């Protein structure tokens, strides 16, 4: 397909898909909690409502942070769809994450400061796993480009089974699902309020929500990659990963950041390294 058309299509379809998935999440979560839950389209209503609000801000940097967060999420997804360098993509994503953190830090507010401090730690917890997954891809394709995966004739899951697990954990952290929701939570927590998002409002918050739609699709795209040879199987894997984070969210309690970091740096990185070691030995990576 023409790359420009593909890019344009992604720009339109990805937020719709991401929003629907989030609506589904709220519905399922409500049912698990014996509530009826909002309509599936609620995330879109939310964004629409936020956009209509009068702009209110504590400082002018907040808008920059929100805008960069959205822009990098879009950029990263476009790079993914257009088969660009996955490592560059991860760092573009990191740029957005850092900007959101700085946006939270930019206000002298106890809740957003607490959220930002903890978001730094969340980033510390998931970032190495994303990079290690991309390294796993490189070991098999000899390239960091997303296109090189598509050129592979076997599903990655056969050689990278553990990364299905770690990627699910990463999605859980990124989406602030329990037990990883230390910097902001979907559930009411007194000491957090809305954590890192507390001081964002109106259009700024709408931009952040929109960025979440794009980011969700990108994160699921990484899971889809594990079985790219048959897109239905890939999509099923992605959905399975997504719904397991929702299930996890509802059956676990929020843990501390200490637990989060030590868990991800021992179990998470340990397992990922084990998988990478297996790939090194199996494929006899040339020196």
């Amino acid at each position, binding site marked *: 397909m023409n790359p420009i058309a593909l890019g344009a299509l992604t720009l339109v379809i990805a937020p719709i898909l991401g929003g629907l998935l989030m609506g589904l999440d709220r519905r399922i979560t409500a049912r698990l909690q014996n509530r009826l839950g909002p309509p599936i389209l609620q995330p879109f209503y939310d964004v629409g409502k936020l956009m209509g609000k009068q702009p209110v801000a504590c400082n002018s940097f907040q808008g*920059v942070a929100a805008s960069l967060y959205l822009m990098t999420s879009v950029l990263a997804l476009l790079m993914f769809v257009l088969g660009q360098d996955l490592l560059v993509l991860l760092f573009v994503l990191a740029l957005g994450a850092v900007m959101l953190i700085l946006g939270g830090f930019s*206000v002298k507010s*106890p809740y957003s400061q607490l959220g930002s401090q903890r978001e730094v730690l969340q980033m510390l917890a998931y970032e190495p796993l994303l990079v290690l997954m991309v*390294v796993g891809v490189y070991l098999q394709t000899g390239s960091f480009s997303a296109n090189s995966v598509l050129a592979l004739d076997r599903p990655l899951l056969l050689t990278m089974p553990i990364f299905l697990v770690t990627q699910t954990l990463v999605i859980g952290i990124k989406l602030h699902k329990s037990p990883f929701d230390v910097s902001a939570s979907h559930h009411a927590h007194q000491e957090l309020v809305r954590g890192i998002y507390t001081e964002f409002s109106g259009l700024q918050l709408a931009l952040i929500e929109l960025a979440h739609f794009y980011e969700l699709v990108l994160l699921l795209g990484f899971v889809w990659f594990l079985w790219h040879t048959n897109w239905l199987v890939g999509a099923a894997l992605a959905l399975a990963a997504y719904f397991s984070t929702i299930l996890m969210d509802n059956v676990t309690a929020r843990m501390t950041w200490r637990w989060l970091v030590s868990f991800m740096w021992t179990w998470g990185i340990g397992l990922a390294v084990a998988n990478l070691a297996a790939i090194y030995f199996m494929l006899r990576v*040339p020196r």
Partner: protein
Amino acid sequence: MGELAWLGRLNVGGLAGVLILAPVLTGLVVFLVRTKWSRKGIVTGTGWILSLGALALFGFGAVRRDTVSFMPPQIPGISWDAVVTGLDLLLIVGFVAIGFLLRRPIVAALAVLQAGLVLWVELSHSVRLEHPPLYVDWLAIIMVMIVSVIGSIVAVYGLPYMKEHEKHLGIPDTASKRPRFFLTILIFLGAMNGLVLSDNLLWLFFFWEVTTLCSFLLIRHDETADAEANAFRALWINMAGGVLFAGGLVVLSHAVGAVSIQRIVESRASVVTNPIALVGLGLLCVAGFTKAAQMPFHSWLLGAMVAPTPVSALLHSSTMVKAGVYLIARLAPAFHDTAMSDMIAVAGGFTFAAAALLAIGQTNAKKVLAYSTISNLGLIIACAGLNSPLSMAAAVMLIIFHAISKALLFMAAGVVEHGIWSRDIEDMQGLVSRMPLTTLTMVIGILSMLLPPFGVLIAKLAAIEASVRMPAALLLLVVGSTLTVMFWTKWTGRLLTADPSVVFPRIEHLHSMYFVPLLMLTIGALGFSLMVVPLLTQLIVPAVAQYYRSVQSDVTTLVQFDNVLGVPWALVFGVLALAVLWPLLYFRGPRTQRTGVYLCGEQVETAATTTFRTAAETAVPVTIRGHYFERAVGETVHARWMMTVSIAALVLMLGAAFLQR
């Protein structure tokens, strides 16, 4: 190109002479003519001479398109080799004298040891000195540009800084120590130019020891007890490194029969099969580790932060520590594809990750910067140890971008220090409301160290890609990169933590000699990142190809980096700039209502700063503190095992010389 052909006919010996000797001579003038205006004029003028000289050398390289070994200008009756040897011995006598004056026998002992080893090399017949002692290739030109341009910018910045510094300490103009200060700084720049242009390791050793002496004098500048102690530590650690250097020279001169770097690199085939020669190279690399403040030798650079900030800016960016990594990178082709090279990568990678971890726990801004320097130099050394054209391209890129960003950060930190008289990151909270301009340069400096689309990150990408063949180094690089993001983000967060009550911060007034250097380096950090692709293809790839040509003729592995080269960086810059600018315009003015923070409805609306009501309606101002996780990442928590591991890595590195591939 036609009208620039004259550049290719430049007398490169004379040019090198200017780059090395001009700052020494002007430094002496500054020292002797003690007026404020002459000092200002001469230091700035020297900066121009050095910058133009470096530019001329760049033009020379661009026209010649080849490496050149050359002699210094011939003066009848003078043998430059004898002059350098004589000066070297004079320098060592100076060290002995310093040892006696300070009552530190170890300094004198190390100096005597150095003298013995150097004389051993000089007097042994195995060494033939017919090879021209100076050499210029792209790597040397890049280094000369960094030293001459960034070094000069720092020197000019030092003019107003040292004035305020002495005013703050209450030193009268008549007793000013500034003449000596700028003499040392300028000699330092000359010595660095000499260091990177030397091909003869004996010459290089002389300049190496001059930089040790200069850094000692500069760290000691304030002559407080603290300064004395830390200057002594820097001196003895670097002199111990000098002993290792001289020892390596003895071994190399016997095993290879040459002290010319080019000759040693050319005889790689016999070097890598000869464990003794490899040990010689290994000793030189350990000397590089000391100068580059790698663990376990890093304590001297942390101590060096007692020096006035221009000294730190100089030591950390363009001089001193860069000499260490330069030496390792320069020698790397000689031990290409050996177990020792791999161990160097692991040792460098370890320092990269370990120093980044320790940086998280620091509240002192200069200490964070110091750990960041140690960490980044570790990364450069890891790249040199990985020893492939791609990793070397990453190393050269890091040398360039780190020099720019770190000079910018130290200079900004110095301006902040003179604005708030503190180096503590906690005191910098909300600096954006007090010194918005300086904060902006600081934030750009910080972001340029870790995020796309800036050059340091692009180099890091190349480093990660190059490390895939070595899992241990790879893991250290990934872990280190993540930790790096953490401490920088925390710091930036403190700077930006603004009280909503300050809506329009007043832009502070900066001395023009503060403002212009900061502006130049900010533009440099942005501009070079924007032009990273031409920089890589036009300058860095040829540089790497040149000095790997005796090892492998093709640099095809670099082509794999096309993924990054293919990213349209100008477009990325444009999109990001747009994303920054539109909210600044949109969320302005009457359209956007300004508000205080959410405090559960207990906000005191009338208070000047963010305040809330607590029990019995008491108004309490909100105080915010950063987290530093001292119990998890404090220096003392990790000191012992990190020292042990880093020493073990060095021992294993030397031991690996005996492993044959």
